[in-house]
């Protein structure tokens, strides 16, 4: 019995300091898992609807734009922005113009576009574009054509990736149709009337 009492005394004596130390410091963890999902968002900020009017002989002979012709193309430009968590490239394509009134179709390469970088990402630095002036405009095609491409790193939001697309029609510049609208009209490609098409801009992630 005496032995048992001694043993119990020793056990309590040992446990007491241990308990005191355990209450002096404690730790617990909160785990934060940040999930950065991929975002690739193309936004047409303005100029989603364009109206091109051929009203005079000069319009038919030399083409129209936001600054050529009265009224020319209204508004004549479209602002787009890309919000992307990774690198990307932008393509453009459209079907030929089809008549609402009138006959025939207007080949889509009569519509041209050139680009201006208005965000902090600039052509020649983060992005590239082969169509930076009216003189080097891209004549649209039915199939997609790359309009803006990756150069170094173009991930970013609208402040970085904002571009103005300037539209031309019938100006025969760059890779646009080399014949005047008048020549095509007189060749019977299309008649007077109203025509429409929908241009599709496609942003694609570069993995």
């Amino acid at each position, binding site marked *: 019995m005496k032995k048992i009492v001694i043993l119990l005394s020793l056990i309590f004596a040992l446990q007491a300091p241990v308990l005191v130390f355990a209450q002096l410091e404690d730790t617990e963890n909160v785990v934060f898992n940040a999930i950065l999902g991929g975002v690739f968002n193309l936004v047409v900020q303005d100029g989603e609807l*364009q109206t091109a009017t*051929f*009203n005079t002989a000069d319009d038919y002979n030399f083409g129209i734009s936001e600054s050529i012709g009265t009224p020319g193309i209204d508004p004549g430009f479209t602002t787009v922005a890309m919000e992307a968590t990774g690198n990307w490239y932008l393509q453009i394509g459209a079907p030929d113009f089809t008549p609402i009134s009138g006959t025939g179709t207007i080949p889509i390469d009569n519509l041209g576009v050139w680009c201006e970088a208005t965000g902090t990402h600039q052509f020649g630095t983060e992005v590239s574009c082969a169509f930076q002036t009216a003189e080097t405009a891209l004549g649209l095609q039915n199939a997609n054509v790359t309009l803006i491409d990756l150069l170094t790193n173009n991930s970013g939001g609208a402040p970085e990736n904002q571009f103005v697309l300037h539209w031309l029609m019938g100006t025969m510049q760059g890779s646009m149709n080399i014949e005047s609208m*008048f020549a095509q*009209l007189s060749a019977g490609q299309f008649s007077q009337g109203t025509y429409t098409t*929908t*241009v599709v801009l496609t942003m694609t992630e570069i993995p």
Partner: protein
Amino acid sequence: MKKFVILLSLLFAFQFAVKAQVAIDDDIVIFNVHLLETFEINVTAGGVQEITFLGPDDYNYGVTEAGGIVSGTSTVTVNATGTWDMTIEADDFSPLPGFSGSIDIDNLGFWIESTGSYNFGDELVLTNGNDAPENSLAMPITGSDVVIIGNGTGNTGGEAENTFEFHWEMGTMRANPAGPMNPATMFSQLAAGLFSLGDFTTTATLTLRKL
């Protein structure tokens, strides 16, 4: 075990498929084009012609762009979104102050050359056959409504297609049956007292008509 292997295989296949997908987003811009009607005629060069009778040959045989008329030619363009024809007319030459009489307008003649991509006999009709100096047509008098260029197989087009060079003559007495120039020399008309020496003027009007 077999089920486990199949499950793993499907899992890998699914993951591969997910990883292979590339993010794509698109947006649109709508274009509406209005092709409106336009019919324009322009004299782009040679809007003023100076005709000078100086020597007896001028009075006896007339003057042309080769001598006596400066510049002797006028360039006319047509821009038309539909088919068209053209007329021309002018009053008799009237004297400037200090001179007397009038010069009959049929002393003035012209022939036409198509310098655009459209040709007479194809897209265009040269109504009176005045395609060379010897076929010059007398200038129609005001109100005669003479068509000088008509529609052939389709003359819709701009100035690239529809550009014309008008070549002017005066006192050359060409005998185009569709409109002969005055058969009398300027000398004989002067001698007959129809007009005196001096300065005279007239204005020819070209009219483009939509068909």
